[in-house]
């Protein structure tokens, strides 16, 4: 587990939807265990498409995806990958309780009859507790708020316990407190040697919890450690005019000749704050003091 060989490898992946829309083109990235990768890009950049092609739910029209050297189906069979989609396409009136949904995450670990063992029950209960939903375990799944539903599906993925965890915008519609406890949880999971790929619109939180970023817009724009890749230049390439951009420099900030300036980049949530002299600006992670 401690080997840092890449476990998810995309080789020249391209996806063209049946309507002719080219959602991804020539994407090659390798993701190694023990890290959180932030997947960043504008609406329609192809983030969800990338997740779906890793899961095999859309077939790449070119290239291939390898998971621990295996094809996607084989990897899913051996329960390697947990996935939380951006929007759950389930019937909310289905007669299942929150705890039943989380238990479904354990099916791959159970025998032929899917009878939960003590270990399965413990894993499901722990996952629910980790997203702070244990009080709701006996609720029917449709009787929850949007953010609560999202938390349940994150819990289902946690209960599944895959080595590779894919989260498509897990923080959208989730309150700050839950977001922070999820982030703590994700850090703990990668410390155990798992790999997490998470897409987000929350630019400010990327340096706060990700190790590496993957910037895409139909093709791969940049990929690498946050410090070197998550730069203003790359972000402007990824977002173009879509980014809210506030810069306060020189006179706005100080009365002296200090050349340092403050740049605030935000998509819609927590802003990304850069401070320093032009070209030498550093990411400001704010009161949070870097990664927990």
């Amino acid at each position: 587990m401690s080997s840092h060989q890449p476990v998810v490898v995309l080789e020249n992946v391209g996806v063209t939807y049946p309507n002719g829309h080219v959602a991804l083109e020539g994407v090659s990235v390798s993701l190694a265990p023990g890290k959180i990768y932030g997947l960043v890009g504008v609406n329609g950049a192809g983030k969800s498409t990338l997740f779906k092609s890793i899961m095999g739910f859309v077939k790449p029209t070119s290239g291939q995806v390898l998971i621990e050297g295996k094809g996607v189906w084989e990897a899913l069979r051996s329960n390697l990958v947990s996935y939380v989609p951006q929007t759950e396409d389930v019937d909310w009136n289905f007669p299942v309780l929150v705890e039943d949904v989380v238990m479904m995450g354990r099916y791959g670990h159970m025998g032929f009859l899917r009878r939960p063992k003590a270990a399965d029950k413990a894993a499901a209960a722990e996952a629910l507790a980790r997203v702070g939903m244990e009080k709701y375990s006996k609720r029917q799944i449709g009787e929850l708020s949007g953010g609560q539903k999202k938390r349940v599906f994150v819990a289902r993925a946690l209960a599944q316990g895959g080595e590779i965890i894919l989260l498509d915008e897990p923080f959208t519609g989730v309150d700050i407190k839950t977001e922070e406890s999820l982030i703590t949880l994700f850090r703990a999971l990668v410390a155990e040697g798992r790999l997490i790929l998470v897409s987000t619109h929350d630019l400010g939180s990327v340096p706060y919890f990700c190790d590496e970023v993957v910037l895409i817009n139909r093709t791969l724009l940049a990929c690498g450690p946050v410090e070197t890749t998550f730069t203003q230049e790359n972000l402007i390439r990824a977002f173009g005019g879509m980014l809210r951009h506030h810069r306060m420099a020189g006179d706005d900030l100080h009365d002296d000749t200090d050349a340092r300036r403050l740049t605030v980049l935000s998509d819609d949530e927590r802003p990304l704050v850069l401070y320093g002299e032009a070209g030498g600006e550093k990411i400001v992670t704010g009161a949070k003091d870097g990664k927990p």
Partner: protein
Amino acid sequence: MMEMLLEPFSYVYMQKAIAVCGLVGGVSAFLSAYLVLKGWSLMGDALSHSIVPGVAIAYMLGFPYAAGAFFAGVLAALSMAMVKKASGLREDTVIGLVFTTFFAVGLLLVSINPTAVNIQAIILGNILAISDSDIFQVALISGISLFVLLLKWKDLAAVFFDENHARSVGLKVDFLKILFFTLLSATTVAALQTVGACLVIAMVVTPGASAYLLTDRFGRMIVIAVVLGSVTSALGAYLSFFVNASTGGLIVTMQTLIFLGVFLFAPKHGVLRARWRRRAA
């Protein structure tokens, strides 16, 4: 009085009819739990009409009707699943499309090669008149279906709830779907011989609908549906000994009355209770 009530049990044919009806009713109800949830309630109706070409061809070639019916049923169910997947049309449209096609082909075959008498007998089914070998066949089909459902009900529920997730935990989704449709077709054919076409549809819908209103857990929903389905079916066969009425008619009337009761009085989802709770709040 007691003697009169026990009288049906003194006839072997009644004993068999009651047992087989209960079994078929139970399996149909089991499947109804899934159909109700998926919005495939008309599937039973569709399948019972789709078997006509199978029966007609079986007659021409001298095969057993049940085999022809079963194959036509499976083929229809799979066509529905495939057309749905490929076209993205809504379930009701797809079901309507496929079953009218099958039914039309069946009518065409029957008009070319008149065999209508036998098809009538199969479509109208009558448990009290059914032969011993047919009873055995119906019991066997239902028994196997019930056994498979008991083994795989959780996997099927996971697939019906969230197909993509079921895939991601390594379930064989396509196999399970084909399995479900095969069981459904087999059970529909079996039910046809006992209650007839018009009533098959009720048997694969009503118990599931009642159960749905009574619980928030799928496992319990199945248990409730199966109990309702098998008890009403066995009772229907029993009662038809006294009142000279069609067995199927009795069964479905009872199931509908139960549904009405549940619809009004169910503790959580019943209409009256919900209104009362809102007023109390």
